[in-house]
């Protein structure tokens, strides 16, 4: 899986890493139990600070997407907790996307089709 970092983006770099790893787990690019690079190795590859990668991994661990230990490094969790709900932050983000789509003239069915595509139903 390829991670793309934009240093000039408004989104913090650790958040970009976190988001892309979550998307990778979701779309199957990262399989359950897959080994992730060490904090140092990923920081070297991206040319960023070790603490930035560490922060992204910490967040992923807290959210239950990955597990880490001293011996094996970081791995994708085999069983990810199914909370069956969307977080408040994501709900706000979704609301913004739907509002912008409505203002842009995108119909409800078009939006649903797009969601289904992204969800992997189509």
């Amino acid at each position: 899986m390829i991670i793309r970092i934009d240093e000039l983006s408004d989104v913090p770099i650790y958040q970009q890493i976190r988001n892309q790893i979550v998307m990778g787990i979701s779309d199957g690019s990262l399989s359950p139990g897959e080994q992730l690079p060490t904090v140092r190795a990923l920081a070297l590859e991206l040319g960023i600070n070790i603490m930035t990668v560490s922060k992204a991994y910490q967040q992923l661990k807290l959210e239950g997407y990955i597990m880490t230990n001293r011996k094996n490094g970081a791995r994708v969790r085999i069983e990810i907790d199914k909370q069956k709900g969307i977080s408040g932050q994501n709900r706000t983000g979704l609301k913004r996307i739907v509002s912008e789509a409505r203002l842009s003239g995108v119909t409800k069915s078009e939006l649903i089709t797009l969601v289904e595509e992204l969800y992997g139903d189509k």
Partner: protein
Amino acid sequence: MYPAKWQNRKLILGLNNREEFRTAPAADEVERIVTTARRRALYITKGCTALSVILLFLHGMILQTFIWTVFIFAAIFAETVPFIMGHRDLMAVKRRLGIASGKGISFADLKAAGSVHALKPGRVLVPNLLGLAVVVFALLVDLGVINMDTVTAKGSFLGTIMVTTYWLTGVLITFFAYLMGNMKNTVISTDSDINANYNRAKKKNLADLNVLFLWLNTILIFAVYLLFMMGCSEMMLMFSIGIYIAIMMIYMALFVRGNSRIEARYIKELSLVSDDDEYWIGGLIYYNPTDTRAMVEKRAGIGTTVNYGHPLGKVSAVFMVLILAATALLLIWLGMLDVVPVSLRLEDDKLICHQLRDEYVIVLDDIVSAELDDELSEHKIYRTFGVGMGNLLKGDFTVDGKSGCKFFMNPAGKAYIRIETADGKCYYISGETAEDTNDIYKELERYGR
């Protein structure tokens, strides 16, 4: 630096090769830019070669050293000029094609990150240990722990210094091999297997050549010490320089051939360009303050280069300036050593040898014996520390196996005085001319020495 088949290269004149460059309408213009740069570089190479042949006929060591040093720096700079010009033209094409700058965007392959290594520690450990064994052996011979009758200059530590220098070069090669082996992987495709294979191939090419270089360096350590034991000092020097130049040329040729093959093989797989062209000044100097890496892969040439935007890069830039300034000062100092003659004078029952800031003072009462001679070439002389020029020998030398002899003489003047003092020291001194030396010798005779 100037590829003939640029279509097969990942980088052209320090810029990322891309689909837009290889297709019409830009392809013809890129072809023209690359061909022009190649032609210019060829003219400069021919010019430099011709000039270097003329420079071989220069007389005078100092003049030769000065002109050659300036020439080498100028030639290196001149060879990069067509590259920088081509890079500038290619950047203009890129802007005209409307290719957006990828400044600030970087890619990493999670599968390849930290897992692609080609340099195994065992491969570099063995040649280093063998080299170290020679260093230890040479040291034990100099310390007299091992008795080797064939080594005439034992005790002078000359052999130890020489093999240690070569061995340290090997350690330095190992360090750089390690750095190169841990360089950032390049992402060329969305397929992780392609990225891993590409980077493994490139790192293996580098690792193989570094290991080869290390082994050749170790063989050189053995050969140099063998020649030293046989007492072939001049031959040893010529041999080692010749071998080193040959090694460098083989190293460069093998690396370039290997790299070209890898680039040609993987150019078809190139689907992702990590565009950091904006950070490469003239395609040669990497300046990216946002990049935490101090060393990055070069875009032209072999190995790694410094990120001048990194604090360590800034320190190294200061060092480079200091080295250049030191080289200039060294040349001036060498020139002064060449021009200012050595002088001898008797003053207050003391014999004083003087040149520039150096002065040897020999108390006349301490002199046990003084002999006038003119056959220096009959002795086996090794310089341990000091200056060894056509018209100046100054410092500590080993003469016929006797170490610690003090030299302060102009060998071109032929005549010299060999003085032994009560404290066991041995001096080889002379004035600027044979007449000056003879005059001082007569004075010493008059004094009863």
